[in-house]
């Protein structure tokens, strides 16, 4: 490697092979001119964007962390049942270099596995807690379910409820969850994070126009029956929200991918809206072979500790 060539130095930085001499040379080059630092930042950003574009093109979004180097969590059915029965599970975030004792508690989500019957879900945004409803989607039996024997199939995109007759962009399905029973736990202090995860499957056999799956959660004050009437015009009133999306090109019909969204829970939050969605990125929008299963909601709290223990 030529340590005097900035292009080579940048290339080495990007693939983590910078030598000690190369590091010194890069530092000297960056210090020699403010424009060099800007150029370096732009090259690094361009590489990040290229990676994201490649992953998106290959159906694995960088934003979701669907990276082969990332360990994936595969919860077994018995494990979730056991955790639900126990009501509370104590875990340790081992992925974090600053591990903090964390309490993790599954929150009841009505039929998160879509196992209670088959057929179309109710149409329109839900006005009460613990029911799935939204755009055209139906629960179907599937031998390839992520969990159990049934899954939810996205069928047709629907327009925003605030603009009937408007452009149909995505197929959105929602459920309200009552957070008020958690207040005593939230009042104990520390960070409280609501985490919603769902497993998505693009069962199209051949690669074609990409689809985007999304998993979101919004927190509100007030009652669902009132808030529902103003959806989605009242999204700006959400006291917190979290979102995660991933792009799929088709061609991996049997693979389930998990998306997880998180948000901090303000103490005044009364209800949460969980949303799972599928959107075709080509027009006219066509949804076929797109499924979701195993939607889970959990509360993670970190007690207020005077010292955080670092694990190296």
């Amino acid at each position: 490697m030529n340590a005097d060539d900035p292009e080579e130095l940048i290339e080495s930085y990007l693939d983590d092979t910078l030598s000690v001499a190369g590091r010194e040379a890069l530092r000297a080059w960056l210090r020699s001119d403010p424009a060099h630092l800007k150029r370096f930042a732009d090259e690094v950003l361009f590489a990040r964007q290229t990676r994201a574009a490649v992953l998106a093109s290959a159906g694995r979004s960088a934003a979701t962390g669907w990276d082969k180097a990332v360990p994936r969590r595969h919860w077994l059915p018995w494990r979730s049942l056991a955790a639900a029965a126990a009501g509370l599970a104590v875990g340790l975030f081992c992925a974090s270099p600053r591990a903090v004792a964390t309490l993790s508690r599954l929150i009841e989500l009505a039929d998160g596995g879509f196992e209670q019957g088959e057929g179309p879900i109710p149409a329109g945004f839900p006005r009460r807690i613990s029911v799935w409803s939204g755009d055209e989607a139906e629960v179907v039996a599937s031998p390839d379910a992520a969990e159990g024997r049934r899954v939810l199939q996205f069928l047709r995109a629907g327009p925003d409820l605030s603009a009937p007759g408007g452009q149909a962009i995505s197929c959105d399905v929602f459920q309200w969850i009552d957070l008020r029973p958690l207040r005593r736990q939230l009042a104990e202090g520390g960070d409280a994070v609501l985490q919603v995860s769902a497993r998505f499957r693009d069962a199209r056999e051949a690669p074609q126009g990409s689809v985007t799956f999304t998993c979101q959660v919004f927190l509100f004050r007030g009652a669902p029956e009132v808030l529902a009437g103003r959806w989605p015009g009242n999204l700006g009133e959400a006291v917190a929200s979290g979102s995660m999306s991933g792009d799929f090109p088709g061609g991996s019909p049997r693979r389930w991918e998990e998306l997880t969204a998180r948000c901090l829970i303000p103490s005044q939050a009364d209800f949460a809206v969980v949303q799972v969605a599928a959107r075709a990125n080509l027009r006219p929008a066509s949804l076929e072979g797109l499924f979701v299963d195993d939607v889970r909601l959990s509360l993670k709290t970190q007690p207020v500790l005077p010292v955080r223990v670092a694990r190296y």
Partner: protein
Amino acid sequence: MLNDREQEQFLRHWTTAQPVVANYIHSLVRDHAAAQDAIQETAMVLFRRFPEYDVTRPFLAWALGVARFQVLGLRRDLVRDLLTFDEDLLERFTRSWAEIAPEASDREAALQICLGRLGTHARRLVRLRYFDDLNAAQIAGREGGTEASVRMALRRIRERLRGCVERELGPSGSDA
């Protein structure tokens, strides 16, 4: 705890800043899980400290400043070599990022188009580099050739992609 108005303001700011902050952290942290943790931690710190935020200053610069401290707190082996430089250089890098990243946010969509225009061999190299996360030496070992020739090829591909993206984002766009 933030009041309703502050929470709404925070939400608006963070929604805009989050992609830029996430890219910044990933550019400095080689371990994916550690980078994700740092992003979450940054969001939490910003949320808690939002009452201290000076609204006369850009939110992104403030957010990147907090992210910088999160990165500095990570284990050394999780972080790329830039951090073995010094804090002054990292601070200047962060300021540069705050300047260029918002302007470059529309490049990714153009890049997807431009990747489709690469030839078969170039596309394969790009896939090995960015999808399989192989470095130049590993690609050379798999594809033949030398590490230097792979670096040169990747550099030329990057230049081609840059040219294509600039044309795509130009005043009228182009199919060239």
